[in-house]
């Protein structure tokens, strides 16, 4: 009896392990952020469009907002731009951009040509803000609640579908939870 049962259970275990590992829906490059539930790192950077203007997130405290990390070198960012514009049109929360590892002139041209969904775009010249936020690629999109805590992080191009499914319920919850 045991001679049969033990290998069989081991086999089922392996099947389960491989099913988890080979699941095509699982993005092996998407890493869970340890910053979820933690205070959003503060930044104070110059604006991409107007270098004399300061973009800081401390002044956003009390508001739910979205931080979208992008760069003109990032193909997937081009892909998500239409979705971001659509989301911005809904005026649910302010979308702040964090332009990462980029060139100012290129970034401005990008915003002119593709449209600008952002309330403001912070220019991260040396990647320090990105490190603080645990950014390891682009696009990455964070949701910050009214207490200035990171509630959610989405890695991959934003879509309207993801916005409705993952962001809107969390925004509603964040607003209900206080602020």
């Amino acid at each position, binding site marked *: 009896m045991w001679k049969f049962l033990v290998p069989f259970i081991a086999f089922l275990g392996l099947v389960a392990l491989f099913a988890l590992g080979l699941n095509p829906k699982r993005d092996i490059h998407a*890493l869970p952020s*340890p910053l979820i539930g933690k205070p959003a790192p503060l930044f104070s950077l110059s604006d991409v469009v107007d270098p004399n203007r300061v973009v800081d997130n401390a002044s956003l405290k009390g508001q739910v907002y979205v931080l979208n990390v992008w760069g003109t070198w990032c193909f997937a960012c081009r892909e998500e731009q239409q979705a971001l514009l659509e989301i911005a049109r809904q005026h649910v929360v302010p979308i702040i951009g964090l332009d990462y590892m980029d060139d100012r002139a290129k970034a401005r041209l990008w915003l002119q040509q593709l449209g600008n969904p952002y309330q403001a775009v912070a220019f991260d010249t040396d*990647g320090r803000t990105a490190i*603080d936020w645990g950014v390891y690629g682009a696009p990455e999109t964070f949701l910050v609640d009214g207490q200035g805590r990171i509630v959610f992080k989405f890695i991959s191009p934003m879509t309207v579908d993801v916005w409705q499914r993952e962001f809107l319920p969390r925004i509603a919850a964040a607003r209900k939870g206080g602020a």
Partner: protein
Amino acid sequence: MRAGLAVRGLLGALLACALLALAAAPGAHALDAYGQIEDPALQARYEEIIKQLRCLVCQNESIADSNVELAADLRRQVREMLIAGKSDDDILKFMTDRYGEFVRFSPPLEPKTWLIWGAPFVAVLLAAAIVFRVARQRGRQSVDDEPTPGPT
């Protein structure tokens, strides 16, 4: 004769390549503009730490080996923290606070990771138990099977 020469030439070229590769290997780090840290002890710690940190873009490379910009930014971060007098633990904590435990190539020993660290030992013990059992069974069998001495 000519073929022999050609083979020798090829072997020589291969050897030269191998030697070159060997010579280049110790210095095969991604290079930064900053140069070495003045204090050799700090430089040694720097090299040790960046070997332990994973490049999150390439994931199977350390930030010591990767040429990706993020890796360069992280190396700069390590360097600055070392010069500012931070301990190795401070630096590792800085990284894991932002990027999670995944940023370290070797996970720390804690309840969450007991399975990872323990699995190889469990496997060896299990294998030893199986070998022991099988050996004992065979031993018993061979005693039983010993041919009775026949007439000569």
